[in-house]
């Protein structure tokens, strides 16, 4: 068994009178693909937002690699190696594809003012490196030819890939994908499955994802957490989950 990377325990999120997430707990191991599924409104995205630091959870604990990150603002969570994509793609639409990848490297490059204003050697080197890394990722994603285009003008499938590239260029340890297959055609879905697999193998990144597309989920997940009405129903391998009566009931209703 590999080591635990992310550990969430007793996570609770309450919006006024609505209990959106009720004591959810799960663990994501290193280089594991972990999926959260559940009917609409089950609280999956709320879990994501809590883990990513966009909401302050009402209760519970989130530990990343032994360090507590509960309630940290999202940009600090990102520094711990948790980076996410969004349900509806959030690219910097008026920036070019290349610039999207350069911005994402902000914390890695020389961003102080004086070296940049004076074009010191350290600055030029860091910019050249950033450009190099961006180019590599564009090649990897097959987006090289669109490098100088505005990101908002890309085809939807390409935008999704660019968003994942933008996350990966920050060198995350846990990649969180919020419905990455939404709006993709069957071919693009197969490509996505291949991509997630490749990311895990080549870059050793763990993946936490929310998805509705069952064939995708069953195909790539190591373990799955099923949620309903904010509560966890069960956690297990795709095989276990598929045969779990409570899961079937949650999706299809009682007989």
């Amino acid at each position, binding site marked *: 068994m590999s080591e635990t990377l992310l550990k969430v325990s007793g996570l609770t999120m309450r919006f006024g009178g609505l209990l959106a997430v009720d004591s959810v707990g799960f663990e994501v191991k290193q280089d594991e693909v972990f999926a959260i599924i559940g009917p609409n409104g089950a609280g999956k995205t709320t879990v994501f937002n809590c883990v990513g630091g966009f909401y302050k959870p009402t209760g519970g604990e989130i530990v990343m690699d032994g360090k507590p990150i509960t309630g940290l603002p999202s*940009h600090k969570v990102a520094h711990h190696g948790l980076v996410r994509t969004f349900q509806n793609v959030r690219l*910097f639409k*008026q920036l070019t594809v290349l*610039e999207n990848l350069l911005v994402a490297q902000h914390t890695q490059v020389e961003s102080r003012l004086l070296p940049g*204003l004076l074009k010191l050697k350290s600055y030029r080197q860091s910019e050249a490196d950033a450009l190099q890394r961006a180019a590599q990722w564009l090649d990897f994603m097959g987006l090289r030819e669109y*490098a100088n285009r505005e990101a908002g003008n890309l085809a939807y499938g390409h935008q999704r890939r660019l968003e994942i590239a933008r996350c990966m260029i920050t060198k995350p340890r846990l990649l969180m994908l919020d419905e990455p297959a939404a709006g993709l055609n069957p071919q693009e879905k197969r490509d996505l499955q291949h991509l997630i697999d490749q990311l895990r193998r080549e870059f050793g990144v763990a993946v936490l994802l929310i998805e509705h597309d069952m064939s995708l989920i069953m195909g790539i997940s190591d373990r799955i957490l099923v949620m309903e009405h904010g509560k966890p129903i069960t956690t297990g391998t795709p095989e276990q989950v598929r045969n779990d009566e409570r899961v079937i009931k949650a999706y299809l209703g009682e007989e």
Partner: protein
Amino acid sequence: MANNTLKNAFMAAVLTAVIMMPVFGLQLIRQGVQTHLEPRWDIVGGAAAVVFVFQLIRPWLAAPLKRLKSHMPVLPSAPTKGRKWLILLIIAAAVIWPFFSGRSSVDIATLVLIYVMLGLGLNIVVGFAGLLDLGFVGFYAVGAYTYALLYHWAGWGFWEALPFSGAVSALFGFVLGFPVLRLRGDYLAIVTLGFGEIIRLLLINLNFFTGGPDGISGIPKPTVFGYEMTRRASEEGTQTFHQLMGWTFDNQHMVNYLYLMALVLALVTLFVSTRLIRMPVGRAWEALREDEIACRSLGLNPTRIKLSAFTLGAMFAGFGGAFFAARQGMVNPESFTFIESALILAIVVLGGMGSQIGVILAAILLTVLPEIAREFAEYRMLMFGLVMVLMMMWRPQGLLPMKRPQVELSK
């Protein structure tokens, strides 16, 4: 259709008459101590007639105007080969120009350059980072008063005070930015608007320190490497610049010198902001303007990035303010009213948000045109408003919309 046009035109004419009546229709005529109210129906009637006719023929005007819209120039994207030389040529022309022209035009040009400086500074905040700042003049005032007060209380000269003016303004930007920058859009605009007014009211009411509404006068002009540019040296035994050079004294020298200094400061501002937008911090500003949540998810600290834009913008306003104080020779709170903020913002919007060349063009337009049309000085704000409305209707992206400095990736 035609019926509708007629109805519209009639309504517009009536409205015009109603609006015009109190403003132009009832003229106050003063004869000695007595004041008469003289109705001028001819003006009101004339204006209503003009509006009526215009509204009638508007449908026929729409087509050619639409064509005009699509033929406005856009800056070429990639830097072309000769551009560097063109820029150098323009700078050289700008340097030589004052020696061949009159005093008043050089004076106006200096004013233009101050606005260029302010416009480029605000462009960082509004154009690049997308933070609507309606109190920019506050930082301008801080810069001007920093120099004025340092001179008044400590006897500092322009060159010693200049870096301090920038620094103090930047500090104000930083301190104000901390609590304010978590606000967004309209809220930020309102708070900055309030801040600008607070600064002005403080300057008026801190009588003992700032001289209140009278301000501070007798502020010295910049020296040339320590030599004064005045008819006589202020201290016994020191030389003035014209004595040093063996020239006869001429006021024009001072005017030219101020112009050249303003040119240098404006060029420095242009250079710095051009570099900034190509640097990581500039990219972060633009990214933040596009999508703050995505920025945060990537580990960018939004508060820090906004603060840097706010602080840098304030710093340039501070430099502009110090120079303004030196040029005027006096400062008072009257120079830093809201209308000034609005003018600077108008320069940025008119030029095209984020577009540096556009901002420079707009600064020239909005400063020179009112000077040329002095006879119409009373209608200045009217024209100003009209230009703004027309711009927003036909060219909302500004005179020369921004073409972002793109980092190109060779294929």
